[in-house]
C-alpha cells in the first residue's frame, strides 16, 4: 500500500490534519453515517447551544442517541457553532439527552471534536465548570452503553465533558489533550512558537493514547487524512461504532457500569 511508504507524520502535522477545515464534522456524520437523525434542542434551563448538538439517530438499523460537538463549514456556520466550543447549556443538553437515552434503552454515541469548552465570561457566570463536572459524574453511572469517538480535536475538559464511556475510539489523525499545544508552549516554554515541541512532548496522538491506555481503538483514515475522502472516513467510523455497539449490547448493564468504573479507575495507575 502506498500509505505504508508515506513518511510518518509528526504530532504537530497531525494537529493540523485534526483541525483541517474540510475534516468531516458532525453534519457529515449525521448525513453519511446515519439513516435518520432527529435533532432535539435545548437544555430546558436557559437555551440551545449550537456548538454541541444531539438527537435520535439510526446507524445501520441501530437506534441510538447521538451527541457531539459541532464545528461549522465556513465562517458563518462556524460563528453560529462557536467553532465547536460548547457552553454550559451544551453540556446540560447532552446530559438531558443521555438521561432520555437511558430511559428509552438507547445506547449513546458521542462524537468529540472541540478546541475546548468556551472560555467566555457568560459561560463562567452560568457554571461551565459545574456543567462539565456533573456530566463526568453522570456519565460514569449511565445505565446504557456509551461509545465515544474522538473524531478531530479532543480539547481538554470541553472534550471530556461528553467523553466518559465504555469504548473510546479515536480517528488515526485526531488529537486528544489536556491543553492545546499552543497553550502549553506559552505556559511551560513561555514561547507560543514552541507549539510543535509541546505537541510532541504532550503525547496527544492516537498512537500515544493507545499506548497510555486512554483509548481502546484507532479508526484508520484514508490516505492524506479524513478530509481527503470524507465518505470513506465516515464509513470507517460507522463500521467501528457498529462493532462496538454490538459488543457492548451483549453485556448486562450492571456489569457494563462496573466495567466502566474499573476502566477509569485504572487510568493513571502504573
Amino acid at each position, binding site marked *: 500500500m502506498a500509505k505504508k511508504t508515506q513518511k510518518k507524520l509528526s504530532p504537530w502535522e497531525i494537529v493540523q490534519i485534526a483541525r483541517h477545515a474540510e475534516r468531516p464534522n458532525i453534519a457529515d456524520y449525521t448525513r453519511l453515517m446515519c439513516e435518520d437523525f432527529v435533532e432535539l434542542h435545548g437544555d430546558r434551563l436557559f437555551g440551545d447551544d449550537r456548538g454541541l448538538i444531539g438527537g435520535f439517530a439510526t446507524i445501520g438499523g441501530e437506534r441510538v442517541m447521538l451527541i457531539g460537538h459541532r464545528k461549522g463549514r465556513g465562517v458563518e456556520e462556524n460563528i453560529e457553532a462557536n467553532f465547536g466550543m460548547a457552553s454550559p447549556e451544551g453540556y446540560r443538553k447532552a446530559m438531558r439527552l443521555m438521561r432520555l437515552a437511558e430511559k428509552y434503552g438507547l445506547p449513546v454515541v458521542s462524537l468529540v471534536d472541540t478546541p475546548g469548552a468556551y*472560555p467566555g465570561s457568560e459561560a463562567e457566570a452560568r457554571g461551565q465548570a459545574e456543567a462539565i463536572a456533573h456530566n463526568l459524574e453522570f456519565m460514569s453511572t449511565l445505565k446504557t452503553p456509551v461509545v465515544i469517538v474522538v473524531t478531530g480535536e479532543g480539547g481538554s475538559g470541553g472534550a471530556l465533558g461528553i467523553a466518559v464511556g465504555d469504548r473510546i475510539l479515536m480517528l488515526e489523525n485526531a488529537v486528544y489533550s489536556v491543553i492545546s499545544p499552543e497553550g502549553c508552549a506559552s505556559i511551560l516554554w513561555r514561547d507560543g512558537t514552541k507549539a510543535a515541541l509541546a505537541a510532541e512532548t504532550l503525547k496527544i496522538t492516537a498512537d500515544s493514547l493507545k499506548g497510555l491506555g486512554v483509548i481502546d481503538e484507532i479508526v484508520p483514515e484514508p490516505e492524506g487524512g479524513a478530509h481527503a475522502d470524507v465518505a470513506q472516513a465516515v464509513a470507517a467510523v460507522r463500521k467501528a461504532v457498529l462493532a462496538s455497539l454490538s459488543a457492548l449490547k451483549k453485556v448486562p448493564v450492571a456489569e457494563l457500569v462496573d466495567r*466502566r468504573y474499573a476502566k477509569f479507575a485504572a487510568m493513571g495507575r502504573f
Partner: protein
Amino acid sequence: MSWFEKPAEAPARVPTEAIWAVCPSCKAYVAKEVWRAADKVCPKCNYHDRLSCRERVALLTDAGSFKELNAAVSFNDPLKFTDASGAYAAKAKATAEKTGVGESVLTGTATIEGVPVVLGVMDFRFLGGSLGSGTGERILLAAEKAVELKRPLIIVSASGGARMHEGIVSLMQMAKTCAAIARLKEAGLPYLSLLTDPTTGGVSASYAMVGDLNIAEPKALIGFAGRRVIEQTIKQKLPDDFQTAEYTMAHGFVDRIVPRKELKGFLAKVLKYAGF
C-alpha cells in the same frame, strides 16, 4: 551614567520576617503571632491566605485524630515530560521533599467534633495543587474508603487545575475522581466540597463542583477558564470581583461562604443535618 539616572540605593535591610507577616493581598504588616492566631486571615482586609494541607487538617479536625491513608501513592511521570525548566520528575521529587507531602492532596481518616470522616486536603505548594495521577488515585481511594467505612467524604480543594506534565493522564483524573464520588453518592453518603483559593480549571470542573454542598472561603478564586484567557476571548476587561467566591455564590454554584474561624463548626453542623 549621570547622578540623576543612578538607581536609588536599596534601603538598609531590616530583619522583619521574624516579627511581621505581610498580607499577600493588601500588603499590610501584621504581627506574626496575630497572623497565626487568626489562622492566616488578614485582620485588615479579611484575605484568607493559603494554608498547607497540614495546617488545614489542624484547623478542621479534632487534635490527634488524623491518620493519613495511602501515603505511598505518589506522582507518576507517564510522558517522561521535560520542558524549558527541566524534567517534571525531578521537579515533583524536589517538591515532595520540600513540602513533605508526596502528592498535591493529603488524604486520611479523622474526626470533626467527634464525627468520623474521610478527608482529602489539597496543597497548593505541590505544583500549584495540580491534579496529577497520584492526586486522582488518592482521591479515588479516599472515596472508596469512605464507602467501606460508611463515612462522609470531605475534600478541600486548592488547585490551578490539571497537571500539564502528565498530559492526557491528568485529564482522565477528572473523570476518575468524579466516578468515585458518584459511587459514594449512590451509597447514600454525604460529600462536602470546600473550595479555597484558588479552585480553577480541571479541579473546579470535576470533584470540587459536585459537592452535596459546595462551601467556599471568602474571596477565594473559583472558576473554569483563566481570567487572561477570557479577557483575550471577549476582548474586554473583567470586573475585579469576577470568579470570586462571592461571584460564584451569587450565580448559584456555591451554597455558602464560611469564614475560616467558623469552618470546623459549620462542617460539624452540616454533618448533623446529614444524619451523622
